[in-house]
């Protein structure tokens, strides 16, 4: 009621140029902005300070860069940093390539196309923890379905999750299985928007399918590819749930990534160190993903 009373005289007395502001009121930003500011920005800024402290949630002692030094000194903490980058590169690389191949397959005229599309995409929507548990069982070294199947054709399957050299890659494999459907639908949207004329014209000129793929599909699907690369790379850097469901970072620290280290340090009560981990992960994304995004988008403009 009061707002109405305040509004009316104002609206009649404002010059026309200002009326546009009234039509698209700036306070529309306020509800979203408040929630975002308090629950996202404040903690993010606070993390910059708390990462420099020894912290019990009730009081914090400033210790400078000690947490960060520890991060780069302790081999198992540093290993998680390397693992995170390896994981992100492998999973995003595989999703970029496999997603494109699947998208080409699923936009061509094949039997069961609709069903196949659904089947490839559905894992994206399934609980990550559920997927993780299922594959942990499937990847059991002696009783898992994968190794018993390999045994049936005479191959001695490895200890997917028990071999320290392999654990991270096995988790990456499952992440690819789970996430490639998303890359595929993004590519499919891109491929569908390529005019069919290009393919017809090139066919008349005698282009083979493989040439069409590399000379028409790949260049023209570029915007979709940029989206896939950036989404899956950032997703890979931030991944936590799958690692946690499958290996808890083990065996030892072999498959620890930044996000699982942050959780472990939090559980152990090293809040300052955990927050430092958060800041390191933030830096990692800022130093790798942001330049990557800028680079990929710039080349697009130049073309």
């Amino acid at each position, binding site marked *: 009621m009061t707002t109405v009373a305040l*509004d009316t005289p104002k609206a009649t007395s404002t010059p026309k140029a200002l009326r546009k502001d009234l*039509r*698209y*009121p*700036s306070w*529309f*930003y306020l*509800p*979203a*902005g408040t*929630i*975002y500011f*308090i629950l*996202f920005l404040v*903690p*993010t800024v*606070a*993390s910059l300070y*708390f990462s420099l402290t020894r*912290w019990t*949630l009730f009081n914090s002692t400033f210790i400078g860069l000690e947490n960060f030094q520890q991060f780069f000194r302790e081999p198992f903490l540093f290993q998680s940093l390397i693992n995170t980058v390896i994981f992100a590169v492998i999973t995003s690389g595989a999703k970029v390539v496999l997603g494109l*191949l699947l998208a080409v*397959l699923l936009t061509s005229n*094949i039997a*069961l196309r609709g069903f196949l599309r*659904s*089947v490839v995409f*559905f894992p*994206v*929507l*399934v*609980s*990550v*923890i*559920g997927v993780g*548990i*299922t*594959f942990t069982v499937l990847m059991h070294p002696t*009783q898992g*379905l994968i190794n*018993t199947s390999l045994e049936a054709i005479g191959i001695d399957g490895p200890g997917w999750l028990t071999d320290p050299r392999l654990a991270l890659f096995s988790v990456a494999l499952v992440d690819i*299985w789970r996430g490639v459907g998303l890359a595929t*639908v*993004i590519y*499919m*949207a*891109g491929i569908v928007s390529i005019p069919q004329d290009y393919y017809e014209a090139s066919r008349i000129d005698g282009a083979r399918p493989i040439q069409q793929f590399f000379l028409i599909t790949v260049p023209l699907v570029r*915007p*979709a590819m940029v*989206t896939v690369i950036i989404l899956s790379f*950032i997703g890979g850097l931030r991944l*936590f749930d799958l690692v946690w*469901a499958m290996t808890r970072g083990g065996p030892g620290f072999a498959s620890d990534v930044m996000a699982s280290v*942050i*959780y472990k340090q939090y559980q152990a009560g090293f809040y300052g160190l955990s*927050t430092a981990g*958060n800041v390191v*992960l933030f830096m990692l*994304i800022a130093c790798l993903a942001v330049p990557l995004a800028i680079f990929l*988008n710039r080349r697009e403009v130049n073309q």
Partner: protein
Amino acid sequence: MNLIKRYWLTALASIVALVVFVTPFIFIILMAVKDRQQAALRDMSWPINFQLVENFLAVVQARDYMLITAYINSTILTVGSVTILVIVASMVGFVLQRHPTKWTPVVEFFVMAGLMIPPAVVPTIWLLQGIGLFKTLHGMILIEVAYNMSFAVILYRQFVATIPREMDEAAIIDGAKPLDVFFRVVFPMMWPVTVTNIVVQSVGIFNDFVNPLYYLPGRGNETVQLTLYSFQSQFNTQYNLLFMDILLVTIPPLLVFLFFNRQIVAGLSAGAIKG
């Protein structure tokens, strides 16, 4: 010759894709209906005793009906946060697209930051404790709103661009107030993207594991995803029950997928063409 080779290649690729993507789900279903001894073998065999109902009841009753509590919590969390998200994000998307000012780049920067920056976990817990929202569903709902805001705003903003400005102007001339212009003219026209947002965000929030793990710990606060986590340690000798739980957790996304496949794909691949 070439044609036959290609035909076989696509057929082979289709079969491989089918096997790789379908087998794990068949495995989940088979495991969920087996009895305890047979499930312990963890193989692909056909169930000897069908225990669909028994396993279902056993999982539901486990730990004082924890799964029921979890379903209630997850439903409140999902419905609450998606409702708030749709309202506040659509308002931002509308003004952001319609009325660019010198502050627009700043807002855009924050939208991108929200997509990229990993949330600072422990400071958030510290803050939630400070305002009394730690371990509460209200707090959890607001967290989900804050974390998923950027994506929702982007979807809305893209869509508002397709609604002609003349619509707002006609409403203004007819004497509508700014709130009416938005809620009675523009918002109804955004219904397709609202459906997309609802579907995509609900699946994401329902499946969220990390954030409830940090911000909503404690007995009685479990969400559906966390039941899996606690059953994983409790049921490591009762695989049939563990997999029954996985099956039950997979059903809501499956239903959403069956009914809203098109909206999900549209929402998730938005930006694929524009970049």
